[in-house]
């Protein structure tokens, strides 16, 4: 990439400044807003590091989803009594010094790295043609390190189980307690009617181009999740009860298809999660589509939080 040194320096400084303000902001709401801005800036930084796939993920999850989650939590915690315990100045200074030391050691380690470091990039590029994919990152995610990706989906499901299990006893099968708008708002309704169709197209597009260009199941799924949440927040659609069969099927369809394809690899190819030669791309795209649905469902439910008591209407 052509050099944009001053721009890079500006982005880096701004990332640091906003990052610092998430830590030192007085009010937690301000810290949460700063964190969203920080996510936007990091997306630019990742573009400058030539990692477009990561930039897409960061813009969607780091800024958008995490930001919304934190903002909702901040609003709920306003009713809590503030915790006024502050550490004494000497301890703060000592902590600051230790943290600076950790940062300095990391920086030194980075600077002392030899110019040529071991890389798997040539190996990835050499074998990419066998998978039929054009995007090396998708190749790594779905072919070379497919087991990691599969297990990551399981981790997502486990995290969701953890969130759900925090529900009070009598609220199981309730509706997630996502914060909604106080009352229906015509402007928001309009936005929630207009944006999701665009978002759904973008989500499917992200998933589709993922095979050959930056994008993929994660990015597409996150867009779909955000659009779903928007519709729920605007009170156009109620959040589903967590016992709904279609929701549960949606949550597991991705990992299930992935696992099925993996097991089929034992028969059709030469091992677990191996794809039959020549047909790898078809299998990978199938898995990606199923995963997009599951990721959308899991991320939306994670952001929506544990269920609360079902209200009688």
């Amino acid at each position, binding site marked *: *990439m052509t050099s944009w040194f001053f721009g*890079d320096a500006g982005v*880096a400084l701004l*990332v640091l400044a906003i*990052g610092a303000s998430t*830590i030192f902001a007085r009010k937690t709401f301000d*810290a*949460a807003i700063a*964190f969203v801005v920080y996510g936007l800036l990091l997306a630019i*930084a*990742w573009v400058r*590091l*030539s*990692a477009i796939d*990561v930039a897409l993920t960061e813009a969607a*999850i*780091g800024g958008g989803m995490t930001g919304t*989650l*934190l903002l909702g*939590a*901040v609003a709920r*915690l306003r009713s*809590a*009594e503030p*915790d006024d*315990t*502050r550490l004494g100045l000497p*301890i*703060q200074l000592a902590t600051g010094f230790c*943290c600076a030391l*950790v*940062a*300095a050691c*990391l*920086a030194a380690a*980075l*600077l002392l*790295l030899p110019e040529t470091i071991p890389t*798997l*990039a*040539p190996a*990835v*590029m050499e074998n990419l043609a066998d998978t039929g994919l054009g995007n*090396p*990152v998708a190749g*790594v*995610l779905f072919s*070379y390190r497919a087991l*990691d990706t599969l297990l*990551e989906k399981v*981790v*997502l499901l486990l*995290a969701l189980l953890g*969130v759900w299990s925090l529900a009070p*006893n009598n609220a199981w099968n309730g509706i997630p307690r996502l914060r909604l708008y106080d009352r229906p708002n015509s402007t928001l309704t309009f936005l929630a009617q207009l944006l999701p169709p665009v978002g759904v197209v973008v989500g499917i597009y992200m998933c589709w181009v993922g095979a050959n260009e930056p994008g993929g199941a994660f990015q597409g799924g996150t867009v779909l999740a955000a659009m779903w949440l928007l519709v729920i927040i605007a009170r156009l659609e109620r959040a589903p009860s967590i016992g709904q069969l279609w929701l549960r099927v949606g949550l597991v369809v991705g990992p299930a298809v992935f696992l099925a394809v993996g097991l089929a690899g034992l028969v059709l190819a030469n091992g677990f999660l191996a794809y039959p030669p020549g047909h790898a791309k078809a299998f990978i795209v199938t898995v990606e589509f199923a995963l997009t649905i599951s990721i959308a469902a899991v991320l939306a439910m*994670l*952001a929506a*939080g*544990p269920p609360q*008591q079902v209200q009688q209407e």
Partner: protein
Amino acid sequence: MSGANLFGMCGPALVGLGLYGLITDPEPLRKILAFNLLGSGVFLIFGVIARRAAAAGVPSDPVPQAMVITAIVVAFAATALAVALVLRLLEQTGRATLSTDVPVREKPDP
């Protein structure tokens, strides 16, 4: 110094900042925020190393990139779980604090 190295210096600084917030801030939600900052610093270090390992016509090593994508998603899942825990703590005790020397308001499960 190249642009990638600038971000390389950013990563460790963010790790330091996040660590500081994680240790010193008493509010659990701020700790979660700080932890996310720490994580993104680590991701950035991965990104810089990936950029340096660029070879064979790819601008950035895809293996660390794939790991970072996975990590961002898992970090979100962990954040969601942590936030749910904090909110449950609030529901149960009326406070959201980790210090043990405060009287806990008993409140039966609704």
